[in-house]
């Protein structure tokens, strides 16, 4: 397994929408490299013929369908009341005219 460089940390930080100063970048590079080195332990395992586990109850989808032959978890498409707009906007940092306000993304000069 590859290790991680300062450039790599900068790239990943951008993907994760985080930003670090130079000292933090160096600090994280060092720590992540050490953690990844430990994780490299997984290379000892022969896994070519091993299927991955993403979920512990693969039969789940059948159980949830409940009726015989049902093979997926889709619920009936019924309209139900949602939360009132005010309740949803109550936690918004900058609500604006009933919407979530964000910094301008469209340049008005165009």
């Amino acid at each position: 397994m590859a290790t991680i460089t300062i450039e790599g940390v900068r790239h990943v930080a951008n993907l994760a929408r985080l930003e670090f100063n130079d000292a933090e970048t160096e600090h994280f590079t060092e720590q992540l490299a050490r953690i990844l080195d430990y994780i490299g332990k997984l290379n000892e395992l022969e896994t070519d013929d091993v299927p991955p586990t993403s979920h512990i109850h693969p039969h789940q989808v059948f159980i949830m369908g409940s009726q015989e032959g049902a093979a997926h978890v889709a619920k009936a498409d019924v309209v139900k009341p949602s939360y009132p707009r005010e309740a949803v906007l109550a936690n918004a940092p900058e609500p604006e005219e009933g919407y979530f306000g964000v910094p301008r993304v469209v340049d008005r000069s165009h």
Partner: protein
Amino acid sequence: MLCELTAHALHEKLKNREITAVALAESVYARIDEVESHVKGYLTLTKDLALEQADRADAGFQKGDEMPALAGIPIAIKDVICTKGVRTTCGSKILESFVPPYDATVMTKLYEQGVVMIGKTNMDEFAMGSSTENSAYQITHNPWNLDTIPGGSSGGSAAVVSADTAVCSLGSDTGGSIRQPAALCGVVGMKPTYGRVSRYGLVAFASSLDQIGPFTKDVTDCALLLNAICGSDAMDATSVDVPVPDWTQSLINDVQGLKIGVPKEYFTPALDPEIADSIQRATAVLEGLGATVEEISLPHTEYAIATYYIIAPAEASANLARYDGVRYGYRNENPENLINMYKKTRSEGFGEEVKRRIMLGTFALSAGYQDAYYKKAQKARTLIKSDFDAAFEKVDVIATPTSPTPAFKIGERTADPLQMYLSDVMTTPASHAGLPGISVPCGFVKSGLPVGLQLLGAPFAEEKVLRVAYTFEQNTEHHRRKPQIQTNGVVSS
């Protein structure tokens, strides 16, 4: 003091009208006044709400109604579970002022029982940690020794039950976050099978691992809380629609004929010798009561931590993408543009451990590395799960230490994240396999700190786990010992 008693003992007193729920709630708040400034287990106290709920429970008892087992019982809730109208921070600055517009399914179920919510408990930020030192707000102190950590991430929920500032509590367990703090604080803590309890309203950390569960003063209370919170839920597609038995029926004081496996891989040089002794004595007790105890092997145990620190951060990096400052939570006030707002908001709002795991997870899922890390870890997860599948062909329950060491000193492991991660070595394997697991008090090391015995069952075999835990408890006295909390040099027991 009333707040020292178990929920089932209190229920009898409430039912017989020996006490009122209001007096019980007052007793808990009086205890909070006495020791909370030293323990620091709570982030928010909800006294007005609690007294209202207690009043309602009293009205029911006075009318002579048939009241649920948890009516009027004071409970604390980990601050990662959404409570309508009550601030829910996840121990993070980014959710400092977040007030959920809805209740988690477990809260709806508990309110139907008529519980009294005392407050919301401290935790590692977004449940990422093993000591509760990653909270953005405060450090919780272990009631058994205030210089030590209570474990984590549900350290607050464990400490308040141990300190009698709550009768019981809820926590969440992703890689051991209920079982490990229960062990370090000398209380009972259980993670049910993945899918037993709805995760609706549990703020997501690692969705394929997260599960809600109880902290209690004994195994009987654990069964009562499971009765209240288990069951499938249309709001959580990963909750499983299997019958939920009355768990109190599993409280059978008899282990004759049960096979208990002790995995040799858990007894490494990293295991504190005093804890190894304590576990050996505990399994000897069970053997003396008629269980068959045999050594088993779970050969992939040593890969569990490496696997966990890929899978959990990978899922976390996706789950935590929602904290962007747009719809709720903290937002940076002077962004240059939208992308810059996301970056500044997240960099200022998240603590260091959360950033470290987002970075680790984003890296493990990034182009060119996904197969080498994420997929490799998912395959290792299969191997770990297969070990357990094979073991449960031969034994009913697996017994191990819950934590390799007793509670460690505050600050001791914060400088070295990898060292902190290794605290979870005994609990993460069962998390990968989604197994039910309980930690029960099984002794004390010479310094006076408690030791936990972890009992694991096959998926949905909680009944056997509870039966062994109950039998052990009924035949030992460890769970009766209470911490002596040092308040300004004055011992407060």
